[in-house]
């Protein structure tokens, strides 16, 4: 029974990774850059929701909504100031900038909120579900997280395939120059992608901190990196891939923490990344890209 409980926790954590991974995978697919600061947007989202809910006493739903709006604005600002001027720069320069932004957000949060970590109270008030005569309990957070992740995934897939903006995104990801010739505003498309990614980060942040209540300036970095691992695992650029990768990674992490070593949980996740990149660098659902000579 404990195995099933671990499995469910793994799927729940994996769903959060999946939502974060979406932000990575869409930005990577469209802007061809690794937005290293994505994980830290989650941390900022956590602080925003925490401030409105616990300090100012607003309702959880309103706090999360404010969190979504402010994170979206943050994502757009980062893109505009730090990434947009570097569209034609070498990828090394863009990556270093993104690392700078990530580091900036972390240390800004540290200065404003202090080194002491905050205890985030859950935004979810769904009662836990008791199964098999009380031997298996599923938390309210899990009951919300998993369906919400599926809803986001499905609606995002429909948005990308059916809407004009979504098809513009596909076009930009396939060929930026050709997209310009077809009358697509590349800058706007990339900005929208960042906005969606950051809004999702805020949702992920509400879900993640509701389960793992510890909120500090660095608590976004590790989930962020793991979600990137998940995005690579599923095949970078692929929306369903992010979901599969996220959930698999969540399960691997929880199970290995339970049965192998608590302290080495992160190391094992990284080992998975290395193995995936060596065996199938394009991920489970990724496409092969050939360099043109």
């Amino acid at each position: 029974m404990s195995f099933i409980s671990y499995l469910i926790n793994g799927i729940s954590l994996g769903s959060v990774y999946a939502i974060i991974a979406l932000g990575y995978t869409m930005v990577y697919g469209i802007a061809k850059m690794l937005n290293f600061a994505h994980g830290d947007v989650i941390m900022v989202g956590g602080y925003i929701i925490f401030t409105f809910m616990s300090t100012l006493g607003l309702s959880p739903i309103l706090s999360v909504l404010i969190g979504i709006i402010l994170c979206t604005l943050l994502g757009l600002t980062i893109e505009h100031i730090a990434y947009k001027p570097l569209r034609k720069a070498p990828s090394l320069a863009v990556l270093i900038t993104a690392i700078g932004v990530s580091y900036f957000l972390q240390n800004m949060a540290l200065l404003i909120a202090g080194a002491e970590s905050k205890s985030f109270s859950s935004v979810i008030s769904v009662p836990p579900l008791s199964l098999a005569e009380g031997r298996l309990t599923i938390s309210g957070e899990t009951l919300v997280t998993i369906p919400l992740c599926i809803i986001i995934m499905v609606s995002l897939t429909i948005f990308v395939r059916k809407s004009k903006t979504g098809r513009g995104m596909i076009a930009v990801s396939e060929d930026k120059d050709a997209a310009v010739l077809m009358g697509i505003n590349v800058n706007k498309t990339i900005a929208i992608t960042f906005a969606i990614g950051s809004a999702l980060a805020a949702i992920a942040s509400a879900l993640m901190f509701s389960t793992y209540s510890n909120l500090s300036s660095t608590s976004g970095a590790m989930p962020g990196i793991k979600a990137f691992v998940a995005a690579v695992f599923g095949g970078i650029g692929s929306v369903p891939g992010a979901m599969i990768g996220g959930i698999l990674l969540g399960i691997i992490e929880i199970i290995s923490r339970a049965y192998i070593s608590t302290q080495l949980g992160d190391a094992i996740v990284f080992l998975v990344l290395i193995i995936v990149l060596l065996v199938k660098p394009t991920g489970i659902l990724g496409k092969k890209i050939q360099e043109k000579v």
Partner: protein
Amino acid sequence: MKTKILNVNKSMGSNLITIGMIVVAYTVCQTLIATGSMTNLLKNLLVAMCYYSIMAISLNLTVGILGQLSLGHAGFVCIGAFVGAFFSKVTISTIENTFIRFSLAILIGALSAGLFGVIIGVVVLRLKGDYLAIVTLAFGEIVKNVINVLYIGIDSKGVHFSMSDTASLNLEEGGTVIVKGAQGISGTPRNSTFTIGVILLILTYLIIVNFINSRSGRAVMAIRDNKIAAESVGINITKYKILAFSLSAALAGVAGVLYSHNIATVQSTKFGYNMSIMILVYVVLGGMGNLRGSIIAAVLLTFLPEYLRFMRDYRMLIYSIVLIAMMLFNWAPACINWRKNHSLKSYINAVVRMFKKNKKEA
């Protein structure tokens, strides 16, 4: 054939300037110490400046010369620090000559870090760009996490390892625990001196510069500039990538040995992502591919925060702004235009034009 000066070592002059700068700085510091006018605070930083400089120039070999971003450089420093400290603690009673023992510790620390560099390089260097960066980060974290739970003890039967606690080492009576998990290694002989640090810095610098200006270094830079063209003239891409990467790792190991012999206790948590980023800041601020710049940046950023209060409080924030600002300054189109219009050369030209104009009018 026209007679050309076949200048084999074209950058000799530049190297001498760098080494001269280090020697002058060293002499000034020694004079200050001798006359008693150096504060203890600064004295304590001298060795640190050396090892941070070594870390910076060794990372510059990977980032500036090989053109690959490594976010796990602290992992190699960590390996060097632990292996070196372990060696010194184990041999402290058998090798009594400090010079020989410390030299061997440095050599062994460098070799182990270099060996890890080869292993990680084989894995990592098949990937490119962003993937490579994230995997080096992963390796750095794995090294840190594994050493953090590692226990090693020694008794008459040999070396015992454990990943859980001291008790499970099953040491016999009289055995000593050397590596104590999260507590790391303590009581390493404090052999690192400023003089040794400076000598090691100059040696590391010469190794890197000579490597860059040799056949192998040219091959590495050719791969950086254009991999496909390098292959087309028969350059073995994998071999030279791994060569540069592991050399960089080995030299980071040297910095690690210097580090662990400078302080009483060395713990693996010190060598995390934050340290890797800090080294990257030195490289970026000093200019990628510019070794002298790396050294200056490392020294300044070690020195300044201790003296300027605001630099101490906002140290990390300043690092992050340095990273972003340097990249925008170098690559944003608006900044490139600004630099073109405000370069020293353009001012000189403007002045020259003004003079010419005045002449005509006169």
